[in-house]
């Protein structure tokens, strides 16, 4: 027997032993139908997952509707909740408040308490809290709207490339201050005469104070491990309050402490150990009362990861009388309204 004969015999036997072709054909159709149904099922599940994911994302990013309004009052405190909704801290919500504000943009009252300067929808805006009129002041220069607005809402300051630019929104005049380092402006004193800056980049970051009249630049504090808050200048511009974080990188939850430093370059002083925070997205906020007698702080102050809300505490600038003002979901920013000055006064 040679190879070809052996091969023919093998083929012949294999063909005879092959299964029933009609059964195979029926099985093929069944398999085809089953796989088609499986593919359709997978497709439906995938579409369902994609849709539910989109809905969840929309739900997560869509700000919640603001609560129903109430009458305008004097001396209210505002904060933002985790969905960037403007909230009143412990008082009825005035109907003229804007619904939302950007946590990284301006968020402050004018000295007469009539307007709120805030950023939303890529614009820096001024909201008249009596009439409810909303006036756009300028387009945000970047996504985070990292500008600081003077208390009257007529000047804005931005810092890039070692230069602080202060622009008058009415006259369009611009004044430049050489600050020597990349920095971002973070706070404008209520008297309008100075701004606080935070340096950007480098191994250590510094808080700086710039007198806008004399141009004097004072180095106030070196960031230890991280300054999470936007520091706040006191109404008279003589002190800067900020929250310092210790242990960032060594612990997952840094220790936070409220620190105050005089803007003339004097030594800083720890006012209060304020707790711990994961601070993954929502950072503590600091503000001064309009009369400069109290500092308000919002922070989670809890080791519970799941808690994203923040209570508001207040303390005197000498470190005494730390007390809880209100628990809730206040985060990111605080603004304390000066007493409303009547236009007829």
């Amino acid at each position, binding site marked *: *027997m*040679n*190879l*070809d*004969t*052996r*091969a023919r*015999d*093998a*083929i012949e*036997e*294999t*063909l005879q*032993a*092959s*299964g029933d*072709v*009609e059964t*195979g*054909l029926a*099985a*093929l159709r069944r*398999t*085809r139908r089953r*796989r088609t149904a499986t593919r359709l099922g997978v497709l439906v599940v995938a579409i369902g997952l994609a849709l539910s994911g989109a809905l969840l994302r929309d739900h997560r990013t869509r700000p919640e509707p603001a609560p129903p309004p109430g009458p305008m009052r004097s001396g209210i405190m505002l904060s933002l909740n985790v969905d960037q909704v403007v909230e009143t801290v412990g008082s009825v919500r005035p109907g003229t408040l804007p619904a939302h504000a950007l946590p990284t943009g301006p968020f402050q009252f004018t000295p007469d308490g009539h307007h709120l300067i805030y950023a939303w929808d890529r614009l820096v805006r001024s909201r008249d809290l009596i009439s409810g009129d909303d006036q756009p002041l300028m387009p945000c220069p970047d996504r985070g709207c990292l500008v600081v607005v003077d208390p009257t809402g007529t000047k804005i300051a931005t810092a890039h490339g070692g230069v602080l630019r202060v622009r008058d929104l009415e006259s369009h005049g611009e004044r430049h201050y050489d600050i020597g380092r990349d920095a971002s402006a973070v706070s404008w004193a209520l008297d309008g005469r100075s701004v606080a800056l935070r340096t950007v980049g480098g191994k250590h970051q510094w808080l700086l104070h710039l007198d806008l009249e004399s141009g004097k630049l004072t180095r106030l504090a070196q960031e230890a491990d991280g300054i999470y808050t936007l520091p706040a200048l006191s109404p008279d511009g003589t002190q800067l309050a900020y929250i310092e974080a210790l242990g960032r990188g060594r612990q997952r939850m840094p220790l936070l402490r409220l620190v105050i430093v005089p803007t003339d370059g004097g030594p800083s002083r720890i006012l209060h150990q304020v707790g711990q925070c994961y601070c993954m997205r929502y950072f503590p906020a600091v503000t001064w009362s309009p009369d400069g007698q109290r500092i308000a702080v919002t922070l989670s102050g809890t080791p519970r990861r799941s808690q994203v809300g923040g209570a508001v505490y207040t303390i005197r600038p000498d470190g005494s009388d730390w007390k809880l003002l209100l628990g809730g979901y206040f985060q990111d920013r605080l603004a304390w309204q000066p007493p409303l000055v009547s236009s007829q006064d």
Partner: protein
Amino acid sequence: MDRIGAQASPDVVEAGGRDFDAFYRAELPRLVALARGLCAPSLAEDVAQEAMLVTYRKWRTVAQLERPDLWVRRVCINLAVSTFRRRMVELRALTRLSARRDPTPLSQDTEEFWAAVRELPRRQAQAAALRFAYELPIADIAEVLGCSEGTVKQHLSRARQALGRTLQLAEGGDAT
């Protein structure tokens, strides 16, 4: 020109294309034989069936080809020798295991013959299986394997020598 990928003549297309059922009935037995020479006996029917499933899924396109038979044979040899694709076939076969009948046992001589083919280097085994299962001419084998006729002759020649040694047979016949 590659006739596997070529379009059928207009008269075939105009006649409403080919009938898959007839194609299946004509092709499956030898496709199983082809698979026998390339993968384990327990998988041969599944590999052949899988090749037919691929063909069925693409039948509207495949039916327009000049040589759909060569196309399905190429799918079959690719399925049989690709590790990943064979694993997929094995997985699917496992899911059908309870309902599937065992492959019909073949005589010892036939099993030895297919085992000898499977032990050949991959391309030699493919060329030999196509030659033995279909008695394909060199040109068709070259087309299915996607190589030149000279290369096919070389593979077949070496395959015959190796099979002759393994099965202790006279080579006989013409390698080409």
